[in-house]
């Protein structure tokens, strides 16, 4: 039983390490650069498999862009420059963190606007309810 458990653990460990190395190993200068690369590519969309990030995707497209981003980092390009380079080719759709622009106003402010509107409705309803008892009979607003 113990041996079986050991085998299972070893198999699981191998499987997880295999998954970890499914992403092509890139020769980073140091851990800081690797972290910067991972943070950057985590926020970028793999255009082929749209719900995956460039960091996690195994698509050919993602591999190629990871390589290009890595190369740009070696050339000393900033995150901003790399993102601009990508946006010029693939539009802001490639960013998981969309910039504030006319086309994204609903995205940015839609939810807070609905929240505020809902809050106003709740406040109005609550105020009506706390009216004196004789006023409640007049109020058709709370009979549903």
């Amino acid at each position: 039983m113990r041996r079986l458990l050991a085998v299972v653990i070893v198999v699981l460990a191998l499987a997880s390490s295999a998954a970890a190395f499914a992403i092509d190993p890139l020769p980073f200068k140091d851990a800081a650069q690797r972290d910067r690369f991972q943070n950057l590519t985590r926020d970028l969309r793999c255009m082929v498999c749209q719900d995956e990030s460039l960091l996690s995707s195994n698509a050919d497209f993602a591999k190629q862009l990871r390589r290009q981003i890595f190369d740009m980092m070696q050339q000393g390009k900033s995150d901003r420059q790399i993102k601009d380079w990508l946006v010029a080719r693939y539009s802001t759709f490639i960013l998981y963190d969309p910039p504030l622009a006319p086309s994204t106003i609903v995205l940015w402010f839609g939810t807070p606007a609905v929240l505020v509107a809902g809050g106003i409705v709740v406040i109005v309803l609550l105020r009506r309810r706390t009216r004196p008892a004789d006023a409640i009979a007049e109020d058709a607003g709370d009979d549903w």
Partner: protein
Amino acid sequence: MNEVARKPVARFVPLIVFAALLVFFVVGLAWNQDHNASFVPSPLIGKPAPAFRLPRLAHPAQFVSKADLLGKPYLLNVFASWCFACGDEHPTLMAYRDKFGIALIGYDYKDTPQAARDWLQRHGDPYREVITDQSGDTAIDFGVYGAPETYLIDAKGIIRYKHIGPLTPDVIAKRLEPKIRELEREGT
């Protein structure tokens, strides 16, 4: 029931809210039916096509650059022998190659030249010229992320239109041909 007589509108509020939700659901469903989520508008439309210099499929020692293709509008069709949807598109290209009125240039994407040559031999070659991008690096400059994709590039090298996915007779008639006619009217 007195209140109802006085404030009939309040009575219908739930119904109105429900109707509004229903409209949202139906519109959302309908929109999803004919909306292609993988379609991303290209930021390159209206901008110059990226500079490129790629080997010809027929003569890999010879190169074709963007400058070589300037002067006349052309269609650049990104395809690959490994691309399943390109096989779907291919009969349409064969049927329309002479009807576009402008040159159809093939862009063999991340493919081996031999596989591309075999594929064209088997299915027919609709292209006036085929250029090959084995690494796919130039394709990134074009904003390619999947094949097939088709670019309409005018005589000055400006990208005027892009279609992602297979060209169909319907797409050609409704979207592509009006754009080609537009170029003809401009006389570019």
